């Protein structure tokens, strides 16, 4: 485009940022529609169907409504933090997307790049560092609201995110060790180069499961949305928020879901790679578009799974939530890392990783059964009636 390579690179970067921002915001609004429709279908309802055919213009109506509604700032809030909190929530989740490759980076057309910040060797670390900042949005929002429910919601959010950060990072450690890099692009091209059997999910199924679970918890989605649990906390951290500030929190949440789904696809399911139509070697005209679509399809599947789970699994109790992180996911993730280290150190076949993952999973199940039988869990007899007779049974 420009003669000066520096200027050219700047222009391409700006163009990519604009494309990504627009893409993400557009996707977010339509994901909300998809979620509403999907939940309606699951509950034998119709869902939004008034604005445009099948309600396709609903997101636009929602957006207009969010912008035009009265933006209430209650008197008792800490104004600065109250206003900054939703922006932090959006800003950090958007920032995390900058190192996610959303297409075949090496085949991109010259006017676009499929990653905002290419060749970031610290890619994964950057993502985790930035996305865990997103919880500041929630904590500050809840705190600045000066409302007990909001504060409780943000306390829960902080405890939850801090706990799930550990299994999230640890589950990826195995993959980073296998690929010898933290660079997402390299991880993707490595997987694509070795075909469909090179997808990490075959060698790290357990890590995939842990990552997916922990990522769900990180993005505060059901069944881990303790921070905004309506039955207990009114609205949780966003109780005092209205109009666009409220919407920003949810744009942040959905962006987080999108980023997470991209990560799951890129890290575990080979990114844009798909047998025959999108191989690493396929260089036919328009191959980049096909690869882009393949990746988009994988991401969409992942998002739909997240939504299905949301309407399927009931919310965890808070101690169960913490128990899952500290007693199950973290030990499993640790054992998985040790397994990867052993396999790499002794040069065993990578298929031992698969076997090891299955073994670890079984071991976790067996331990779970035994732990529930023991007295450690404080199990006691459940009485069938409301009466508690003075005479013991028998």
């Amino acid at each position, binding site marked *: 485009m420009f003669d000066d390579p520096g200027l050219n690179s700047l222009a391409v970067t700006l163009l990519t940022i604009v494309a990504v921002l627009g893409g993400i915001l557009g996707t977010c609004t339509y994901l909300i529609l998809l979620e509403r429709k999907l939940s*309606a279908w699951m509950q*034998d309802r*119709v869902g939004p169907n008034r604005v445009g055919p099948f309600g396709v213009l609903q997101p636009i109506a929602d957006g207009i409504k969010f912008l035009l509604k009265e933006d209430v700032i209650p008197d008792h809030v800490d104004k600065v933090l109250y206003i900054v909190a939703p922006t932090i929530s959006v800003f950090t989740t958007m920032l995390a997307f900058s190192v996610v490759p959303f297409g075949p980076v090496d085949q991109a057309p010259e006017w676009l790049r499929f990653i905002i910040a290419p060749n970031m060797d610290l890619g994964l670390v950057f993502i985790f560092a930035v996305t865990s900042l997103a919880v500041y949005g929630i904590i500050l929002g809840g705190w600045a609201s000066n409302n007990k429910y909001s504060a409780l919601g943000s306390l829960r959010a902080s405890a939850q995110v801090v706990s799930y950060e550990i299994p999230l990072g640890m589950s990826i450690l195995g993959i980073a060790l296998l690929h010898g890099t933290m660079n997402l692009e390299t991880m993707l091209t490595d997987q694509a180069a070795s075909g469909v059997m090179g997808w990490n999910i075959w060698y790290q199924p357990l890590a995939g499961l842990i990552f997916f679970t922990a990522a769900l918890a990180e993005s505060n989605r059901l069944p881990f949305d303790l921070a905004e649990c309506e039955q207990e906390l009114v609205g949780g951290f966003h109780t005092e928020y209205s109009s666009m500030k409220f919407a920003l929190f949810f744009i942040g949440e959905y962006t987080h879901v999108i980023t997470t789904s991209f990560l799951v696809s890129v890290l575990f399911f080979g990114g844009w790679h798909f047998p025959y139509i999108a191989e690493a070697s396929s260089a036919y005209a328009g191959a980049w578009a096909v690869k882009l679509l393949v990746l988009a399809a994988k991401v969409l599947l992942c998002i739909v799974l997240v939504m299905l789970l949301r309407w*399927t699994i009931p919310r965890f109790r808070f101690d169960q939530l913490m128990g899952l992180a500290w007693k199950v996911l973290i030990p499993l993730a640790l054992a998985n890392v040790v397994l990867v280290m052993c396999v790499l150190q002794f040069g065993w076949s990578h298929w031992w990783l698969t076997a090891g993952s299955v073994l670890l999973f*079984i071991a976790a199940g067996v331990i779970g*059964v035994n732990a529930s039988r023991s007295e450690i869990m404080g199990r006691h007899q459940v*009485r*069938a009636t409301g009466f508690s007779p003075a005479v013991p*049974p028998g």
Partner: protein
Amino acid sequence: MPIDSQQVTWVEEPDIGFWEATFLPAIVAGLKTTLRHVTEYKPVTKQYPEEKPSLPEHYRGVHRLNRDEQGRVKCVACMLCATACPANCIHIEAADAPPEWPDRDKFPASFVLDELRCIYCGMCEEACPVDAIELTHIYDLTGRTRNELVYDREQLLSIFDKTKDNPRDPVRTHRGKLGPAAAFKELPTVGPATAVPAAERAAVATAPGVIGPDPQTLQGQ
């Protein structure tokens, strides 16, 4: 009195098995259930403004003031409905009937019914000796101010004009036809507020304290 310990059922919490401890089968089963609703999608939603509900025959909606054969208001301003009204929403001002109406002494100079205050119990209809006030099937009344929904005599009469030809809102006189008020030599016995077809559940009276149809009533049918 404490419950006898023999009557208490002691329930052991079932031990969880291996698969339950791993969560996964339960999650898959749950996903199957939710997905089945998507694949076998049978919504029960009624698209309301386009698709009107079919209401039961004895539905109680907005009131109307009936007219007699000569198009006059049937009401004789006896105040029985206003007295019976538990919500106190009917306000009648009686006046001497004009001399050309020899069949009655009084007629309502103003008949104001606050549709927002009304609880649609139908007791006015029950109380009326000349079948002048009746409840119709109209339920979707809206207004921009509260005053718009305080109906006066002419509005209530216009609702009669609107609904008299609707098969679901028949003129439910106890005598079978409308006549001048003076035709009532003796007061009709008080029937149910609204004529209920025998087939409908509401037609079967329940004995006090008994849930469901009274066996005696059923035998009588």
